[in-house]
């Protein structure tokens, strides 16, 4: 069973997620869940002079949701918070680099939506996600 959806990069992030764990003295802790699948993540953010000094996450769920969270933490580490409030969902999807069906879009975007809520920014309009 070969699968474009489950190419090696995704599986590698799923098995060995980057920045997985907790930040004990996090400035912001934000839970997010995807009731459709039962995916859950908690993001821990440590701010440093207007930048995201450190980010970690814990979670459980499908490979798409967890790999996407792992990839997102790599993308956003160290970047200015103001910029991250407008972090485009498409940038994460591009980095995932796999076709995401409408049914799985909520899995793929759980991490970025949780990050936006954590930073007090609204969730991007999800016309495509339903």
């Amino acid at each position, binding site marked *: *069973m070969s*699968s474009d*959806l*489950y190419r090696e990069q995704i*599986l590698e992030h*799923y098995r060995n997620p980057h920045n997985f764990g907790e930040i004990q003295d996090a400035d912001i802790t934000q839970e997010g869940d995807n*009731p*459709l*699948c*039962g*995916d*859950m993540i908690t993001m821990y953010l440590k701010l440093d002079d207007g930048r995201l000094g450190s980010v970690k996450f814990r979670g*459980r*769920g*499908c*490979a*798409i949701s967890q790999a996407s969270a792992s990839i997102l933490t790599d993308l956003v580490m160290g970047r200015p918070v103001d910029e991250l409030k407008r972090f485009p969902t498409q940038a994460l999807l591009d980095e995932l680099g796999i076709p995401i*069906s409408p049914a*799985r879009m909520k*899995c793929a975007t759980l991490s970025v939506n949780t990050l936006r809520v954590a930073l007090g920014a609204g969730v991007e309009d999800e016309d495509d996600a339903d």
Partner: protein
Amino acid sequence: MIEKDVSNAGMARGVPPVWADGHALDVGAIRRQFPILKREVNGHPLVYLDSANTSQKPEPVIAALDDYYRRYNANIHRGVYQIAEEATAAYEAARQKVARFVNARSVREIVFTRNVTEAINLVRYSWGRANVHRGDRILLTEMEHHSNLVPWQLLAAETGAELDFLRIDSQGRLDLEGLDRKLEGVRLLAFAHQSNTLGTINPVPILVAAARRAGAHVLIDGAQAVPHMPVDVQAIGADFYGFTGHKMCGPTGIGVLWARRELLEAMPPFLAGGEMIKRVSLRNASWNELPWKFEAGTQAIAEAIGLGAAVDYLCGLGMAAVREHERALVDYALERMQDVSGITLYGPQDPDLHGGAISFSLANVHPHDLATLIDQEGIAVRAGHHCTQPLMETLGVPATTRASFYVYNRPDEVDQLVGAIGRAQKVFTG
């Protein structure tokens, strides 16, 4: 779709001999009646293992819908012209078929709703608001579908009643220990005839008898039972029994509430508007007779007629034969699936207690990843919480995968599922 001789398919692993006796379903002939089973999905013949979600539709049901819209589409109970009379007659004939199908004492006890959710909410609003009071108790089970949980949460919040729950054991069977004590002060006992997630067939006679001793009313969610086994509402002796058309070869948008006539007579209307009235003045109205008192507005006419065709279809197969077919499939599937490495099977191990739905999880593959992967082989299964989030908490998992069976499924489709699960595991374990 390649038609195989089912009498040989997958028999090696011990499907019981009753499979081949004179009352068994002719699955090859059945499959030819379901046009969708001829299509391919992702380059593979469709293997549809999600009938607990919604069943596929046979030709006679599709034809009944088509025939109504082509030949006699008209509103019911109003027109005096020919096609309106034909539509009314077909709609009411469908009600009669449904009444006979579940052995209702009177056709007036059959109220058409949109689905079981609406049937339960009808009872919540109409009977519940008038009969459930502060301090009363409502007893449910922890395996209920949200549709038989959330309405009672809302009624309890509204009235000050309390909710309590029967728990399940490690095989997904209700724990009946102390049932009589739990029923003390209970106004309503509401439970699923068969669990949509676990497949557990609940001990209806024991539960109803205990509720009667305690003076409690009984509502049964029959969404997963009526499509799959003989159901006799008089023999069961409950007060309310709901089921839905789309899980029993019928269309979506049509469901049924059966209730004892004297209860329906006493209950206030649910939805108000046209058709449910007898006389209306500017300030007052009186109610139509049963069952129309509960059928406000233009009904799902085509869908009701389609449900009637579905009932005819299932009667032609024989519900005892349907149940036996699924029992044998579950027996075979449980045996095949327990050999899959890293699998956890939920629900009763005894196929006599296990309806045609099997939930499972795998150590290395999340249910949604599994469902996505095997979809690429044309296999349709449900992944998620199955609208039973509290039950997922009890099982300690965020979600499960569920394979569910119906009259058109064959043992070789179980074999394909097991093979696809193994290939999905390889993707994740390398």
